[in-house]
């Protein structure tokens, strides 16, 4: 069968037969992906738990599926709405969204997997399963309209600089998907912020018919010029995200009122708004959280810590808001949790076991500081409407430090008891 042929190729690669020997890591990974390895236990204990890293990562991917599926539909929905079309079916939207989102997912796995394969081959290790999750997380934190070349650069940076240079899965200090996203954020800020308008202009063919061209991103200040220069209205455009609206600090503008004139709390909870593919729907994130906590894969302590920290910090701003403070201070604390990447980051990014601390108490502290820092960045700093990515990356640096003190306190207590 196919499996036997694959195993024969793996064996030949391991024996060093050129040119197969350069494909050893990739072939071995395929072989163990499709079928359980034949390894038996070498020493006591003679039996082992059935859960391995592949199962672990698969459950995280399963928890991300609600966000992915909703994100596909929402992308399609956004595409239709922005050209003024409201009579589209669920399947229309899903199909339209799939055309934008699924290629990104495939690209993420293909390019990320290729980078992993090179490193595994050079180090003579096996390809680790960590990228099964990174490959799914990364597209979900990017906008659907991101150019493919930009997307590819991001994942390469994330996998190589965010993970492999540290030693691969299990050794990374930072969450690799967030490193990739941060790279995009700092290298291509105009395309990544919520101020970007994305249009799909028309091309006029020789026979006079109009055909929609590829998506183009236009900086906000040039949109007026661009539309004026077109002979026909663009095929589609998408507007600013909820966070972009509410953190706008123009004189005389009540940004909170402006926000609720466009989106209701329910819209934001369900995710009926523009944004990155997987981040918009708090509801879908909570379904994912349920899957992670029920299976024991994701730490509820981290998640609860993030939400608690966010609520506390947002409350501080809320209760100190006045006429002199920026209008975003007056946003009700619980609304913060529904916007931007807060829920997604709390549930899927902060809970990455490798980059988060080990001890249960440390995880609570870590989560709390992430939530608080995120709201702080969002509210105080006009240059960063979204603070989640930065606050998680920042706390990743301190994860080991928090652990150090918590574990030292615990071991001192234990030594004292003897």
């Amino acid at each position, binding site marked *: 069968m196919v499996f036997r042929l694959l195993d024969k190729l793996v064996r030949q690669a391991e024996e060093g037969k050129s040119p197969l020997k350069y494909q050893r890591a990739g072939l071995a990974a395929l072989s163990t992906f499709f079928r359980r390895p034949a390894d038996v236990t070498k020493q006591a204990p003679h*039996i082992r738990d059935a*859960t391995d890293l592949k199962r672990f990562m698969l459950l995280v991917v399963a928890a991300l599926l609600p966000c992915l599926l909703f994100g596909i539909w929402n992308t399609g929905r956004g595409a239709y709405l922005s050209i003024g079309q409201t009579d589209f079916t669920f399947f229309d939207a899903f199909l339209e969204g799939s055309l934008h989102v699924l290629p990104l997912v495939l690209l993420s796995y293909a390019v990320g997997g290729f980078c992993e394969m090179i490193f595994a081959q050079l180090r003579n290790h096996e390809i680790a399963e960590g990228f099964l999750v990174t490959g799914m997380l990364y597209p979900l934190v990017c906008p659907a309209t991101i150019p493919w070349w930009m997307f590819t650069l991001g994942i390469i940076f994330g996998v190589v600089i965010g993970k492999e240079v540290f030693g691969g899965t299990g050794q990374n200090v930072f969450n690799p998907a967030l490193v990739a996203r941060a790279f995009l954020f700092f290298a291509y800020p105009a395309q990544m912020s919520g101020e970007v308008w994305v249009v799909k202009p028309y091309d006029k063919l020789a026979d006079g018919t109009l055909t929609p061209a590829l998506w183009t991103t236009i900086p906000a200040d040039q949109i007026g010029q661009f539309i004026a220069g077109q002979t026909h209205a663009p095929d589609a455009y998408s507007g600013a995200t909820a966070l972009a609206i509410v953190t706008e600090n123009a004189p005389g503008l009540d940004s909170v009122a402006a926000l609720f004139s466009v989106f209701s709390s329910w819209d934001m909870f369900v995710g009926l708004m523009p944004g990155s593919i997987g981040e918009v729907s708090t509801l879908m994130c909570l379904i994912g959280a349920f899957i992670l906590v029920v299976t024991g894969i994701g730490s509820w302590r981290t998640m609860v810590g993030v939400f608690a920290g966010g609520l506390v910090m947002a409350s501080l701003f809320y209760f100190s808001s006045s006429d002199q403070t920026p209008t975003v201070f007056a946003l009700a604390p619980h609304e913060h949790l529904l916007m931007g990447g807060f829920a997604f980051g709390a549930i899927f990014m902060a809970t990455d076991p490798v980059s988060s601390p*080990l001890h249960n108490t440390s995880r609570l502290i870590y989560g709390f500081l992430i939530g608080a820092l995120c709201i702080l960045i969002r509210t105080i700093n006009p240059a960063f409407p979204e603070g989640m990515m930065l606050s998680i990356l920042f706390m990743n640096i301190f994860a080991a430090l928090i652990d150090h003190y918590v*574990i030292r306190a615990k071991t001192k207590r234990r030594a004292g008891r003897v």
Partner: protein
Amino acid sequence: MTLVRFQGGHRFRVKGEPAKVVETLEAPELLALSPAGIKDFKPRIVVKVGDKVQIGQEIAHHKKNDVIKLTSPAGGVVEEIRYGRRRVLKGVVIKRDAEESAVDFGACQTDALGKLSASEIETRLLESGLWPQLTSFPGSSMPLLESERGEKLLAGIYVSALFTESHTLETSLVLDNNTENFTAGLLALSRLHPNLKIFFKQGMSVPEQIRSAFKDNICFIEDKYPAENIGVQAFYTKRLKKNEFIVGASAQTVIDIGYLFRKGRVRTERLYAVCGNAAQKPMHFRGRKGMAVSDLTQIFSEQVDGSQIRFISGGLFTGKRVSAEDFLGSLDESVSVLAEDRHRIPFVFFRPGLNRLSLSRAWFSALRTDMEAESSTSNNGEERACIQCRACIDVCPVDLIPNLIMKASVTGEIEAMEALSIHDCVDCGLCTFVCPSKIELGRDILDGKSLIEKEG
């Protein structure tokens, strides 16, 4: 009669457990004295081929201290002295004769037994060859003799009259018809140290004779692995100081000791459990000390190809590999026969997993309360880096952080290992069992302990 509860651990239900029936086996022609499994015992053999020996006669003693002896399990003629790889002594093989005479150590009445001093008990155990059947914690080797202890203090004697590890004996069958011996053995051990504790499984009905004689010493412990581990028992009843150690005895060892004092002879009978999915009839057998694995395995399936069948002496978590020709030593009481599971299940990690053995909730088997898992030797994956998933921490019965100890051990950081209380580790193997990255945590922690001992 307290109930001891402990954190972590797990109640395993694995197929291949021995049936609760006992069959008596005829004594084989050849029995052997094997030092296998006795940690740190370096044998110097004092008999030669052709010598006539009695049951209980000295066959070998410990090179470092010749009062620690191993004695003959049979009466007859020394047939062969068998060595394995690297001149490791596999066994001194004795051909039984019809009468099987035995050394008389002098029987002892109960009241007299109750008045013997600790050193008198120790001497009797040494000369009869029963001393190496005792273990100690920390360390799991033979207990230090009174003369060797120096600053180390004996803090108690812990008797485990229970089995929770998969593929081990049934306690009630061990105690059946042996309560007199068991009680006498407990009395002898109580003379070694007043702090004698006897652990039974929660819910077990203790035989009346034992209950009345040792009411204050009996403890019950939660029915989950590794409840029989004396390190766990000590952790939750009397935390050991740095210079303290405890002595452990299994139920059969206590019976052997009681028999020695009551009858003045070394007991030759032993109850064995034969377990595993490659055993034709997993059940209990009454046999002789010093039998070969193959004497028990006549009852096994025909396949004996080493790559297909694994023989384990001891339970599935702490047992060691043996081969069919090996002899069962004084610490061996259960043999598990498993078919090696190299089956490459397609798309294994996509399956719902209604039958998969796991302590995590990653499979649908977590919803079942009645499941008996396959005793598969599959590693269930290849070794990967630690991802800090906390599975090892959550299962550790003595509240350690195994993955940090592993990292300290691998990098040789002795202070870090000490700070993480590596000496509290009871070597139950649960952290290695659960690790999804398939890291050999138990081996790394043991290496760490050896490093500390060497550098100490």
